């Protein structure tokens, strides 16, 4: 099986702050990690290769430092990592990102499965998986929690919905997004780490992808971020004092007055 995993490097914490002067994010001093949801995608790709043989390639669109995320994927067992990086790719929304990823996937044919995490820690959109599938014109299943069966040209999976799960079938090749219920990601191995240090990570830019400039980066994006702000958290509330009995009595009293009991 030929599997491609899409991953993104994100800041390690969601506790990011806005610089009040420039109104942009303060990224200084924040470590970068593989988007946690993507670790499940990587793990599933490796498990499928262990089961069926084949190859797992990880691709990521990002600035040059995103190479570290691809090396980490290799230390986990991914066969190869490819970085899609070019100043022209910056400022991309999910559409432009999906277009760029699809150009890379064009060079990686034939493949059987494309696996993505369900959303990123920073953007939180969950849009790239389905949009990539649409650009590639491939079948798509979201929120896969278990791959039950894969045969030559089709698969059967479980995917999560609000009140349970659905069992779906799809031909291959296909695009999936996976949820954390699907597996427990492994830890890197010492030999994997050694391999990742000596691995060559090709960098594909506009030239290598033969990219249509109207389909990448800010130029290729339909949406714009108009502004960002920190949500205001105001303390609205009353904290009840006294011993436990007092506190509980006060609470019940208030709720009764509010008509909530």
């Amino acid at each position, binding site marked *: 099986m030929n599997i491609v995993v899409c991953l993104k490097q994100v800041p390690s914490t*969601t*506790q*990011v702050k806005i610089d009040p002067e420039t109104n942009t994010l303060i990224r200084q001093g924040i470590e970068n990690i593989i988007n946690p949801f993507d670790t499940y995608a990587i793990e599933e790709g490796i498990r499928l290769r262990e089961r069926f043989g084949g190859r797992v390639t990880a691709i990521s669109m990002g600035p040059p430092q995103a190479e570290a995320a691809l090396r980490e994927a290799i230390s986990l067992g991914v066969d190869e990592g490819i970085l899609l990086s070019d100043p022209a790719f910056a400022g991309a*929304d*999910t*559409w432009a990102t999906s277009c760029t990823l699809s150009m890379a996937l064009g060079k990686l044919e034939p493949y059987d499965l494309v696996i993505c995490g*369900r959303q990123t820690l920073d*953007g*939180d*959109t*969950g*849009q790239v998986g*389905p*949009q990539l599938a*649409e650009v590639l014109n491939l*079948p*798509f*299943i*979201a*929120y896969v929690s278990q791959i039950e069966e894969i045969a030559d040209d089709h698969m059967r999976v479980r995917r*999560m*919905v*609000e*009140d*349970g*799960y659905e*069992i*779906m*079938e799809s031909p291959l090749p*296909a695009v999936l997004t996976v949820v954390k*219920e699907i597996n427990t990601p492994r830890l890197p191995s010492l030999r994997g780490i050694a391999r990742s240090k000596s691995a060559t990570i090709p960098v594909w830019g506009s030239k290598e992808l033969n990219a249509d400039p109207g389909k990448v980066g800010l130029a290729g994006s*339909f*949406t*714009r*971020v*108009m*502004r*960002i*702000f*920190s*949500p205001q*958290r*105001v*303390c*609205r*509330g*009353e*904290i*009840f004092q006294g011993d436990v*009995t007092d*506190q*509980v*009595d006060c*609470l*019940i009293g*208030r*709720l009764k007055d*509010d008509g*909530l*009991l």
Partner: protein
Amino acid sequence: MGSDNFRGVWVFAEQRNGQLKSVAYELLARGRELADALGTELSAVCCGHEVDDVNSLIAHGADRVYLVAIPELADNQEDLLTRRLVELIQQHRPEIVLAGATALGRAFIPRVAAALPTGLSADCTDLDVDADKRLLLQTKPTFGGNIMAVITCPAARPQMATVRPRVFSRREPDSSRRGEIINVDFKRERYTSRTRLVEFVAEITETVKIEEADVIVAGGRGLEKAENFEMIKELASVMGGAMGATRAVVDEGWLAYPHQIGQTGKTVCPRLYIAVGISGALQHVVGMQTSECIVAINDNPHAPIFEVATYGIVGDLFQVVPLLIEKLKKR
């Protein structure tokens, strides 16, 4: 698709098993306000089979309903929904399309946006319009809710956004409203559906559905063990409410995923939300902050939950909750 001559606000009215989902009405409520601000019409698009009470969409604000009602769409087959919605949009050129950020919405609406192609913001927590520029201002959380972003789609049309259930409130239906229901055809042979639903397996164990509960008692890591959730269950039962959980609790396996509230779980908006042993990390708070009344019980006076709580008790939950249960039972 350039922005000339695109008019109208559309709401994708999601249905499941013939029942329209509440999020459809919530979006119609807000959609009506946006349409009025833009001086344009509000339409609902409803796809399914034997959908109950389609007229209610008009009572809730729609001027028009595009109804695609055929057996093949009964189980919301995403390939079919995507293609049909894309065609309808291309045909009628709305300037704004809204949908619920449900499991279905998050899966197929991005595909619709990519097919047109146009811009989409998922999981918005607020929508507004700049009427002069006919621009939809889409506010959404990023970084787990620590940073809010206002997004626009300046040129492409339609401007698309998905919104979580319970973010907007539904209005009282106005049965005097008039509107038209347009039956839209669906020539099955024109569409291929590649993925196939084999079976749906329900996993609801609770009698009260968390999204519809008026009262939710939620437990966090402070409960320490699975067994201690008996206390949450009892309090919820005494108050006639549902049980909720933070992601940490679900990750530990103390409660199942349908109870999870927050960024990667459900958004709820009950009348009363009682947070027991929950620190109040933003990823959780974004899922319940619009609750009418929030009560927090935590032994850490600096826990962020107290910043959003209406009422707070700083204390040992293992003392507070049993006492609360006891006193409520006596009433």
